[in-house]
């Protein structure tokens, strides 16, 4: 392991790699500031730039984006009461009141340091937990992988869509799309309609960019309201000084944030908004002065922001160790890893140890860059919000185009991107969610080839899928989760009916 870190150190501490990480962090921060542009989209748009880079450099850049976008949602949340990302919704609870009291600089300083400490702590958790999990996963056979992919799909379906049913349908759409192209076992074409470009299946990148970026552009085009103009923040903040001591003085909130982020992070599909709300709630409960929360209390900001960034490291655990992403941004990152020729999963730790430790270290470095860039560039990032939306829309389309075309110069992929953009727009609009589709596309081939290989190995007998201990555990948890989600939906509906009746 020490050797791995030494090798990783050599890969990360090169001028080009550090520059790429800093650049990724910078772009991530800008994307995080803009409401509606998520870290998933930021990574999808940056993917093409990373093609020519060596793996650690390219992935470091994407991790920087993830890290920057995770932290910078707090800037508009504190200054303008507009959460830049879904996970900074809870930052507005205390951050904006602080700004109103004239403490905007202090709130930003706390948010930045809390994000930084949360990110560093989650990197430690990641580096400690991912290798043993990957080692455990080496025991997996065909049956286990099949069950694991079913498990992953059920989890994301149960949290991503507005209802379990819709989430499952979205996931199955992804599974179905993954069957287009050449069959993995018999080598026959399926559903290609004579299109040569479809023989290799639907490429992940156009699907990703279509689902996350193009669908958002269409939504913006649809909901465009010219009267909705953002006002510049009345709070003048030129530079945000990091407030390490004050953040550490709020150690309870910090610890609560880190723990909730790290626990929620690895749960596939849970996402940042859940982690930050859980952290805020728990921090208030553990606080000695719970009545101050919501009125501009520093501890509130610290808990939320540390949870936001602690989540990212947690979400990377299943992504790297099992090849199953925790949420949308890591799903896109997984696509990026595969394009770099790094196939996440247990074998990664066996074969490419240097790269994996390089990734851990790159994530750590990204957190440092995030701290520095956020502190120095506050003024610039607030101004980003004033860029007119219409110019952004068309510029994003141009970047989507470059991203997809840049891979292999195939125009057909552009139409695939547009088709997925439309699909994503309608899926989002009717509460199906787009994350399950992407996960279905990634997990589909794993599920299919392992199901068929398993059936071949067991001579057509499907009972081993339910009798092998690890496999059955995944299926039981997946089934339990289905039941739990249905039960929760039922309960909340009853509650609604009760409150409507009274």
């Amino acid at each position, binding site marked *: 392991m020490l050797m791995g870190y030494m090798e990783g150190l050599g890969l990360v501490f090169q001028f080009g790699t550090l520059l790429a990480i800093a650049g990724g962090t910078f772009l991530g921060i800008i994307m995080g500031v803009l409401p509606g542009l998520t870290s998933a989209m930021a990574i999808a748009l940056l993917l093409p*730039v990373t093609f*020519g880079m060596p793996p650690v450099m390219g992935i470091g850049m994407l991790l920087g984006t993830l890290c920057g976008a995770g932290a910078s949602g707090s800037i508009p949340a504190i200054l303008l009461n507009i959460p830049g990302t879904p996970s900074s919704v809870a930052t507005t609870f205390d951050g904006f009141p602080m700004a109103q009291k004239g403490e905007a600089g202090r709130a930003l300083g706390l948010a930045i340091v809390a994000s930084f400490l949360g990110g560093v702590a989650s990197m430690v958790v990641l580096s400690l937990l991912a290798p043993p999990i990957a080692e455990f996963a080496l025991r997996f056979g065909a049956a286990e992988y099949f069950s694991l992919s079913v498990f992953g799909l059920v989890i994301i379906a149960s949290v991503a869509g507005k209802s379990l049913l819709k989430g499952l349908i979205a996931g199955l759409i992804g*599974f179905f799309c993954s*069957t287009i192209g050449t069959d993995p076992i018999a080598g026959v074409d399926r559903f290609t309609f004579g299109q040569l470009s479809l023989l290799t299946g639907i490429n992940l990148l156009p699907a990703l960019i279509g689902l996350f970026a193009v669908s958002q552009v269409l939504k913006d085009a649809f909901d*465009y309201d010219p009267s909705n103009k953002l006002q510049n923040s009345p709070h003048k903040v030129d530079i945000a000084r990091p407030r390490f001591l004050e953040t550490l003085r709020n150690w309870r909130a910090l610890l609560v944030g880190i723990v909730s982020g790290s626990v929620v992070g690895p749960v596939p599909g849970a996402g940042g908004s859940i982690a930050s709300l859980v952290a805020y709630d728990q921090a208030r409960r553990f606080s000695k002065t719970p009545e101050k929360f919501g009125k501009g209390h520093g501890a509130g900001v610290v808990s939320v922001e540390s949870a936001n960034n602690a989540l990212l490291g947690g979400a990377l655990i299943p992504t790297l160790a099992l090849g199953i992403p925790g949420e949308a941004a890591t799903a896109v990152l997984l696509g990026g890893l595969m394009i770099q020729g790094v196939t996440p999963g247990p074998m990664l730790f066996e074969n490419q140890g240097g790269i994996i430790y390089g990734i851990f270290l790159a994530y750590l470095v990204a957190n440092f860059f995030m701290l520095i860039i956020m502190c120095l560039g506050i003024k610039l990032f607030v101004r980003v919000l004033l860029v007119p939306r219409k110019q952004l829309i068309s510029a994003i389309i141009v970047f989507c185009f470059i991203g997809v075309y840049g891979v292999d110069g195939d*125009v057909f992929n*552009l139409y695939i991107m*547009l088709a997925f953009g439309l699909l994503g727009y309608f899926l989002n609009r009717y509460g199906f969610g787009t994350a399950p589709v992407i996960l279905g596309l990634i997990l589909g081939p794993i599920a299919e080839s392992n199901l068929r290989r398993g059936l071949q190995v067991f001579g057509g007998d499907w009972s081993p899928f339910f009798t092998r201990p690890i496999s059955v555990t995944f299926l039981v948890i997946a089934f339990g989760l289905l039941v739990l989600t249905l039960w929760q939906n039922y309960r909340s509906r009853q509650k609604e009916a009760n409150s409507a009746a009274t």
Partner: protein
Amino acid sequence: MESGLSSLLSVSIDFETSHLFFPKVINWLMAGLFVLILVTKVAPFMAAVKRGERTLPIVGEARDNFRFFGTLALIAAYFYLMAVVGNMFPYTGYGFLIVSIVFLFLMSLLYLHDWRKKTITILVINAIVAPSLAWFILAKLFTITLP
């Protein structure tokens, strides 16, 4: 030989159709869920539409049709023309540059509200500068293939 429990526990897949096995499973699952959603969500919704409480999606919605379909048409035209123009100047990325400038300009016009000289000038400058910068960085510095 195949009787009772053992036939229940095993499946046999014909090699000729083995490539359709997984898609078939998925399609049946999807069909099942589709029926479920028809019964649980769509049927009550349609009843509400009939009573006049809700309106049909897409058809019955107020929407800026010109902008929505204009955006879609522009994007499709952008992709198509890129390849056409790009073939006139192969391997230079000029196709991207020229078509992007036109595309950015038209998209901005589509969303423009105050038709003053000043705003249009800003649009034109933006439409020329942004793609040129992207073209220079990506095609020249990162040597990414552009049409």
